[in-house]
């Protein structure tokens, strides 16, 4: 078990302390102590616990048993075995935050490499060591923009095609501030330039997603220009797998690039832990929240790494810190680092292409079905697309589930008026057969 103490240990220790019994250690506690046992189960041995919990796990049907076309911010990608082999090393996962760099160079160098990979992917200058997830990374970008202008600019323009949960998270984060969010009622088919009229000299930040929540790819150059003409900051939120194929958002002149890193070797795990990516231009490095690792040397002339720019953080600045973040997603950043190291330049491109081609095959087949059509047929997309269906998406999904298929995301649940629309994601994990079955069963629906 986890307590090493024998009765002899206890007795000797109590004697050293100078008390007679264990209870003596608690005799000075004030009145609000518990005088009865808690209403919790009796202990389980490891064998029994595993049995019990395995049964709980079996009560779920996963993307392994079902054929899944669900995306909407979390994706079923292949995780090479070597990723977990490294993650399961106790020296990594049972280590603490690397505040003592002399005995934490493993963690520190891995984070440094993570930072480098994120800047390589996004084309930005600097990266932090991670945020909790994509949603909180966007919320921190809002926070950062607000502090950048010292509170003088209070407007944040968020594209309506930014993940609904990210927009919700931003609304939660800003409720104690004077920040105002705009953009929610811009029509979804209006394109990114439709945000331009919302930008003025009170705008701190404009945020778009690439590919957006509907999987669409837009050229954000014109929008970026308009944002900078107003001297505001431009943030683009990305899917890192897409960047294996698509040009980096730095080319749209982004100041901040955030991302959800779950597709990089991190399991779906019913929603978490995931990985928030946060990168920026060099000039904003001191305004970035979160831990940052920098290169240096030690007293023996060895190249090494340390947490740096710590004076931005809560343990130094306290109420003057721009963010309260302490723990981040260290182990998930390591997963992403190992994943990208294994795939490398050619592997990530290949995965991105597989996603792209399979999704386009699926889209073409579905669009050819009578009564089905793409919601945004004119706009290029990556590995996700919105489909208009002859019946409500909820009903379609129910029927698909009868055939062990997880259909797409019911867009009506996030966008009023889109109740008949499904957001379908296709990854390298979906075979042609699976796609054909999906199309077959969708076809049945429209004939029923």
């Amino acid at each position, binding site marked *: 078990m986890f307590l090493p103490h024998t009765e002899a240990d206890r007795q000797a220790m109590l004697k050293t302390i100078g008390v007679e019994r264990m209870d003596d250690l608690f005799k000075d506690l004030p009145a609000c102590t518990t005088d009865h046992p808690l209403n919790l189960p009796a202990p389980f041995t490891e064998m029994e616990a595993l049995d019990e919990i395995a049964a709980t796990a079996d009560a779920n049907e996963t993307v392994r048993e079902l054929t899944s076309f669900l995306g909407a911010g*979390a994706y079923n990608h292949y995780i090479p075995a070597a990723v977990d082999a490294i993650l399961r090393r106790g020296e990594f996962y049972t280590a603490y935050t690397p505040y003592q760099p002399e005995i934490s*160079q493993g963690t520190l160098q891995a984070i440094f490499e993570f930072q480098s990979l994120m800047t390589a992917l996004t084309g930005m200058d600097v990266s932090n060591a991670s945020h909790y997830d994509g949603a909180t990374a966007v919320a921190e970008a809002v926070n950062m923009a607000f502090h950048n202008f010292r509170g003088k600019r209070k407007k944040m323009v968020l594209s309506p095609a930014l993940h609904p949960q990210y927009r919700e998270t931003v609304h939660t984060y800003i409720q104690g501030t004077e920040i105002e969010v705009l953009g929610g009622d811009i029509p979804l088919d209006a394109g990114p330039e439709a945000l331009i009229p919302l930008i003025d000299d009170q705008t701190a930040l404009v945020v778009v997603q690439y590919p957006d929540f509907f999987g669409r790819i837009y050229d954000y150059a014109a929008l970026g220009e308009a944002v900078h003409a107003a001297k505001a900051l431009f943030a683009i939120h990305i899917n890192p797998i897409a960047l294996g194929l698509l040009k980096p958002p730095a080319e749209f002149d982004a100041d901040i690039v955030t991302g959800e890193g779950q597709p990089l070797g991190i399991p779906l795990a019913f929603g978490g832990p995931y990985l928030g990516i946060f990168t920026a231009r060099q000039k904003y490095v001191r305004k970035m929240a979160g831990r940052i690792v920098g290169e240096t040397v030690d007293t023996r002339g060895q190249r090494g790494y340390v947490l740096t720019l710590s004076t931005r953080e809560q343990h130094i600045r306290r109420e003057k810190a721009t963010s309260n973040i302490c723990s981040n997603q260290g182990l998930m950043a390591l997963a992403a680092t190992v994943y990208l190291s294994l795939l490398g330049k050619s592997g990530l491109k290949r995965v991105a292409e597989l996603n792209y081609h399979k999704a386009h095959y699926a889209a073409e087949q579905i669009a050819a079905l009578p009564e089905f059509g793409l919601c945004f047929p004119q706009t290029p997309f990556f590995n996700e697309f919105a489909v208009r269906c002859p019946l409500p998406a909820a009903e379609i999904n129910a029927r698909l589930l009868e055939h062990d298929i997880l259909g797409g995301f019911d867009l009506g649940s996030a966008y009023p008026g889109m109740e008949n629309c499904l957001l379908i994601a296709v990854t390298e994990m979906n075979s042609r057969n699976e796609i054909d079955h999906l199309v077959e069963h969708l076809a049945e629906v429209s004939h029923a």
Partner: protein
Amino acid sequence: MPEIKLELPQDEEAPKVVNPTIFEMSVPGRVGVTFPEPDVPAAPLPESFTREDLPLPELSEADVIRHFTNLSHLNHSVDTGFYPLGSCTMKYNPKINEETARLPGFAYLHPLQPIETTQGALGLLYETQEWLKEISGFAAMSLQPAAGAHGELTGVLIMRAYHRSRGDDKRVKMLIPDSAHGTNPASSAMSGLRVVQIPSDARGNIDLEALKAECDDTLAGLMITNPNTLGLFDENLTEICDLVHEAGGLVYGDGANLNAIMGISRPADCGIDVMHFNLHKTFSTPHGGGGPGSGPVGVTAELADFLPTPIAAIVDEGDEETPPLYGWYSPPKTIGRVKSFHGHFGIVVRAYTYMMMLGEQGLREAARHAVLNANYLQALLRDTYTIPHGDRICMHEFVAEGHWEDAPDIHALDISKRLMDFGFHPPTNYFPLIVPEALMIEPTETENRETLDAFADALIRIAEEARTDPEVLKTAPHKTPFGRLDEVKAARELVLCCWLPEDMD
């Protein structure tokens, strides 16, 4: 096209590279993992959007495994040694947790699947909520926050929303003890509240007179860590909570130190209204080299409507033949969601496994032995180190001062660095701020007596060295893979990537 490999200067002052980075190891054409050819026709690529180059390293799988395995050898970790970090609760991370978290029935579950397909996971979340409620006395819980600081932000926003829902817009003052963790004031500031610091008294409790002076109708609440960061259970806890409540405020509990009181004292019973838990501290989930953690929030019934959305709940009670149906519940006055999806499910599974194995008795014994271990260490060190409240029975941790009048050049930092030569990770340094040269020591209950004795011996020997051979402390560590690192250079000459930003142009 920037060069990926770092060109190390050829002069003799170039730093010695212990482990090349993945970029330096890269050789064009190497691949670690291959993928199949597409089984569908190729669709035309969007030409204007395709990237010209992807500057990622190219390595074989063996290169990658060897690289990260070698890096791992440079780390101290709980699996390799003692980590007496105060307020971090670096207890042993059970390996069974890693098995349960990885069960395919959990790992391959998409968060947006229909509830009929995720009853096991929903039931696990629900039961975890129930157990945490029972341990703490709270009426309702959210498992969504991703870490302790995230839980604090959530809790503070709940307090603010509560006051505003009652028309109490004036209540913007948050009282925070001077011994508090930095995330407390940071979270309050992020929520638009004004931070006022409350001093501790000579016994290490919150100064009651100072507290009374701030109890007015602008009081949103008090943030308290109990036991506090000195390792002491506040002797006036119920009075403090009563004072705040009488003034119309709420009490926030920072649950970082829950390991000392599980099964012994329930925070809600003492008057705390809202509290965050740190699953990666108290409930044995691993620290991961800096996360992921998990910071669930518990509240009293009065605050339940404000919790983040969504919460795992029973949506259909079922009957003798059908089990209950689990689903999602959205509290009617929710502050909103605080991140995407449902929280760190993978971490919750680990905590759930731990709580199931420890059970009612095990959780209380863990707390009791955490307190035993801390008091034992305190007793061993009392004569060699100044321990400001060493005359009191401490709880799971205590703070010693890392300096002596007759060794004026030696600071807590030097003691910490020398401890590494003995194979120990140093205790928390320079926190809490109210103790000079603070060394905050928390052994946890999973350490055996021999380790504690060895640690105390090392600290006593260091105390001698401070007088007889201070240089060995000032230049420590000597036996670790790396010596002291130049933090000034790191901050002044920022190199944050494997190549410098200007080389990218």
